[in-house]
């Protein structure tokens, strides 16, 4: 049986040797290119998938929130948490959107997939 020596270690993007690749960013070869492609793709994804409901408009004032998520070794997005954000309705929708993100090509260290965390700001204005 192979035991993972450190199953819970999570890296941040400046630590990993190879940045994760967002679906559609396969052309991006350098880490900088992958980073900026991922950023703009995430922006586009959230912009088109975040649903502003009537209820939100009625009860929320809008805010900028920060959502953290982990890209697992298999590329799935897990452990989504609100880092900063007061509004429950907005937080709920932000988490839903994060959880629905497409699978990534995971970050790598020494050629092996590692877990990596990412913090995404979402600016919700009405």
């Amino acid at each position, binding site marked *: 049986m192979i035991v993972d020596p450190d199953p819970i270690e999570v890296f941040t993007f400046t630590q990993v040797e190879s940045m994760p690749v967002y679906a559609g960013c396969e052309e991006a070869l350098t880490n900088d290119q992958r980073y900026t492609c991922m950023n703009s793709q995430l922006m586009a994804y959230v912009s088109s998938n975040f649903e502003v409901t009537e209820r939100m408009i009625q009860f929320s004032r809008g805010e900028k929130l920060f959502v953290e998520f982990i890209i697992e070794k298999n590329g799935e997005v897990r452990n989504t948490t609100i880092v*900063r954000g007061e509004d429950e309705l907005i937080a709920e929708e932000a988490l839903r959107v994060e959880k629905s993100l497409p699978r990534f090509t995971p970050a790598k260290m020494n050629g092996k997939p590692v877990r990596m965390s990412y913090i995404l700001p979402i600016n919700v204005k009405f």
Partner: protein
Amino acid sequence: MLIRSLLASAFLSLSLPLAAQATDPLHETQTLPVFEHCVHIQGDQSEQQVCFNRFVMNHLINELKWPEGLTKNGKVLVELIFDATGHLAEVNSLRSYDDLAKEEALRAMRTLPDPIRPGTVDGEAAPVSMVVPVMFTRN
């Protein structure tokens, strides 16, 4: 290898503009504050962002010290708020695992130089906030 092991990582990105109403399809265009180190960059905002990240990260690598008495590795999430003049107005800890680590992360961030140009929203100077994870790792 202490410096390398004290990897501080800056993890910043632009805030996401969301158009709330279908009648307002225009998304805001936001830019980050510009440090003197990055003022030469003429390219698009993504290059400016990479430069900004790197500048903050390098600053942390030079500035962060392992706090005496800190025994555990971990991560502190620090929020930076630049005001509309570009001044670093607030440095807050959003999540921490140890008070010593938290204080050191905040101290190191407060020594950042002020950017020479503020961030903007739709071309106007505006406050900008971001979250930077600061890692304390030592084997």
